[in-house]
């Protein structure tokens, strides 16, 4: 004890080294984990040290935060994890946490006797990857290695991301595949021609967004406009799909500025689409008529399927923002660049021409509403997060942790599922739609085996994030909404009050559903979010969703002035003062992007997500520069992450699977 007090620095380096001798220990992974424990309470310090030793971790104890920081700085790379007390006389634990996060980027676990929600939330906000409430138990410490692994994982992802963009793209395409598959599934018009059209659009969109987020600065983006894509398709047709090689296509297309690589990546996607399509279309022939008729009902169906949206917007039935959100969701891509893709501009032009005045209201709905709704919940949500366990497979980064939750209600409405929300709103009073929804839910429930959710959802019209968004994204659904023009009028977007009202419903039901007997934490947590109760059940899909969300936020940021509300509202939530409005739009975009990041969350380690929230705060100050780098990097991280998680899932929910379920 005396030694402990005399040597606030390191009391057990000797142990560490003695452990280090047994190098074979390192092979048995969690054993040998190097943990730095910082606590001004010597009793706790000693207990935790002993516990760690019992877990065969290498514990180094330190009674002063400053000393710990020095130690960490001196011996960079000598520790895997930091366990820190919150209240320390020389330095607040949170400060230490922040510094460690910034300088060393080590996972930090906070410990405190104070288990009150506010305290735990503070920890999370500051980027703690876990928050242990004293008394600490050995079982809790046994598990801490997971944070190290998680961190490492994400770092690798980051590197991967920066190194191979194409890989990244491919993965993301995987995400799209799933989305596409399900939307086709729900759409079910079963007309091959329409399918082909959509595929084309989709294809083009994909190409368009390909390099947006990550490489906007690297190489000029190729916008696969309709014309360009048609040129591409005709070239491919001319050559024959099997014999089509990028070089020949390029020659045939004869478009200046287009490179072989551009064509190659586009071709790759095109092939994938064809492949997928063949699987889908076979199934679709057998679809019942009732599901096939919707397309024809749409009087405003544009020449191309995608222009459904535009047509709707033109008729004022979908507010422009929704439209953009929708579109972004459909694409699931962030633009990342100030230059908008052509498509978006078109969309926006149309939308704003028709519904100029509605833009602001809608922004209010999308962004403002959730925020207003949530503050009371935030703390709960956050506190839940901390206790929530993380599973190992894809759910390892389930949308339930922090981000999606924090986000779900606040950031979120913005980020994660607002498209769905709006969509849900749009479809609120549509009987047919409801039927479809039920169908889809049925569908989904079969796939995901989560019966409880069915009971609630169909009746309450909560739009479970996945199906609803697809429904909307889909052509048929939209035409459906056209045919119900009367009710649709409510959602023309001009009336704030009306638009917002259904939203509480949504969240309410989200909660109701949560109560409806779901024993999975993920579920419950998501239930909280109201918007996306169903998303955790299908990992890949939810990842998808989040992807979209991110994309949407990013997309919309440059387009709508009103979207600036987001950071402001967010900052309110975080109790930060200061005006944001004078910041340049660049900054705004950065924030938004981060926002998207937070909202999307799925695969981010918690402290990353939290960091994002944090960097909002620091945006006010000088530290923004420091964060600026992160801002740029992180969205990529999750993409890759997500891509990786969703890719395997693709096989799981292959179009065929879904289709078969559906047709049955």
């Amino acid at each position, binding site marked *: 004890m005396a030694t*402990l007090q005399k040597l606030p620095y390191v009391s057990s380096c000797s142990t560490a080294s003695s452990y280090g001798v047994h190098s074979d220990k390192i092979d048995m992974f969690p054993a040998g984990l190097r943990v730095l424990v910082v606590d001004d*309470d*010597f*009793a*706790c310090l*000693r207990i935790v040290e002993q516990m760690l030793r019992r877990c065969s971790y290498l514990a180094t104890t330190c009674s002063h935060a400053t000393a710990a920081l020095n130690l960490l700085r001196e011996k960079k790379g000598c520790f895997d994890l930091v366990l820190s007390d919150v209240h320390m006389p020389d330095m607040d634990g949170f400060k230490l946490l922040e510094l460690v996060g910034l300088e060393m980027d080590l996972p930090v676990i906070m410990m*405190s*006797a104070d288990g009150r929600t506010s305290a735990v939330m503070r920890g999370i906000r500051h980027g703690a990857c876990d928050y242990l409430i004293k*008394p600490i138990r050995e079982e809790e410490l046994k598990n801490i290695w997971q944070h190290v692994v998680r961190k490492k994982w994400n770092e690798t992802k980051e590197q991967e991301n920066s190194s191979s963009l194409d890989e990244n793209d491919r993965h993301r395409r995987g995400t799209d595949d799933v989305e596409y598959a399900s939307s086709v599934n729900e759409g079910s018009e079963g007309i091959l021609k329409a399918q082909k059209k959509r595929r084309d659009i989709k294809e083009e969109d994909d190409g368009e967004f390909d390099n947006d987020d990550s490489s906007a600065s690297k190489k000029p983006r190729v916008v696969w406009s309709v014309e360009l894509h048609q040129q591409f398709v005709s070239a491919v047709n001319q050559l024959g799909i099997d014999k089509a090689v990028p070089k020949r296509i390029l020659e045939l297309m004869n478009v200046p500025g287009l490179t072989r690589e551009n064509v190659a990546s586009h071709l790759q996607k095109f092939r994938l689409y064809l492949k997928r399509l063949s699987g889908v279309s076979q199934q679709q022939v057998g679809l019942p008529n009732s599901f096939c008729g919707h397309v024809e009902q749409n009087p405003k169906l544009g020449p191309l399927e995608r222009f459904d949206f535009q047509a709707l917007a033109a008729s004022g039935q979908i507010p422009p923002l929704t439209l953009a959100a929708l579109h972004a969701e459909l694409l699931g891509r962030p633009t990342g660049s100030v230059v908008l893709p052509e498509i978006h501009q078109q969309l926006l032009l149309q939308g704003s021409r028709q519904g100029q005045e509605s833009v602001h209201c809608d922004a209010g709905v999308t962004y403002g509403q959730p925020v207003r709704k949530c503050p009371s919940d935030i703390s709960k949500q956050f506190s839940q997060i901390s206790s929530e366990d993380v599973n190992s497979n894809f759910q390892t980064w389930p949308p339930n942790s922090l981000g999606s939750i924090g986000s779900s209600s606040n950031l979120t409405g913005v980020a994660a599922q607002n498209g769905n929300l709006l969509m849900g709103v749009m479809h609120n009073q549509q009987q047919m739609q409801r039927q479809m929804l039920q169908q889809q839910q049925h569908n989904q429930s079969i796939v995901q085996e989560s019966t409880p959710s069915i009971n609630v959802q169909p009746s309450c019209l909560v739009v479970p994030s996945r199906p609803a968004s697809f429904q909307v994204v889909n052509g048929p659904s939209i035409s459906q909404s056209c045919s119900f023009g009367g009710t649709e009028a409510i959602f023309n977007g001009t009336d704030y009050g009306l638009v917002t009202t259904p939203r509480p419903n949504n969240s309410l039901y989200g909660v109701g559903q949560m109560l409806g007997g779901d024993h999975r934490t993920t579920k419950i947590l998501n239930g909280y979010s109201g918007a996306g109760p169903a998303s955790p059940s299908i990992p890949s899909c939810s990842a998808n969703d989040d992807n979209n969300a991110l994309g949407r936020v990013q997309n919309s940021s440059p387009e709508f002035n009103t979207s600036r509300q987001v950071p402001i509202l967010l900052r309110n939530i975080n109790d930060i003062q200061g005006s944001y409005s004078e910041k340049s739009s660049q900054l705004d975009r950065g924030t938004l992007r981060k926002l998207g990041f937070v909202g999307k969350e799925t695969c981010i380690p918690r402290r990353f997500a939290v960091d994002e929230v944090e960097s909002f705060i620091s945006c006010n100050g000088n530290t923004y520069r420091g964060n600026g780098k992160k801002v740029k990097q992180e969205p990529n991280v999750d993409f890759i992450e997500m891509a990786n998680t969703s890719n395997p899932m693709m096989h799981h929910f292959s179009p065929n699977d879904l289709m078969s379920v559906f047709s049955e």
Partner: protein
Amino acid sequence: MLGLESYRLVADMNRLLALLFHQGVLDEQFLQLQQLQDESSPNFVSEVVNIYFNESEKLLRNLRALLMDREQWEYTKVGVHLNQLIGSSSSIGANRIRNVCVALRAASEQNNRLGCLRALDVLEHEYCYLKNKLHEFFHIEQQRVLAAGIRYPNPMQQHQHHP
């Protein structure tokens, strides 16, 4: 004879522990502590408990000073001290001290000075009680170790048992 003595001491220890558990002075965290004791640190429990008493005595003194200071009410400092005391008390399983600390914290948050002082009195009392009891406990344990030590490592006795 010696074995019997050792046996009796163990029984005493158990009885004392049972009493403390029954009174709610200790909780199962203390048992956790005992489980952490192994051959690498044979005196782990008493070591930790001693650290705890030293630390909490300081904290109690500080708390007393803070609360008696009529000029200024250092609410946050009280809170910090209490937090630490709660943390360490719960870590060794000093359940009743912990509970009193929580009550004290509540009183201080309500700016209830009288309640604070009363709680502090109780806290000091609890502290003394636990300290006495645990000292008694470790005293018995020491005796037991001594008794056991005489019995086993002594080669003379071993020769007697196995001639």
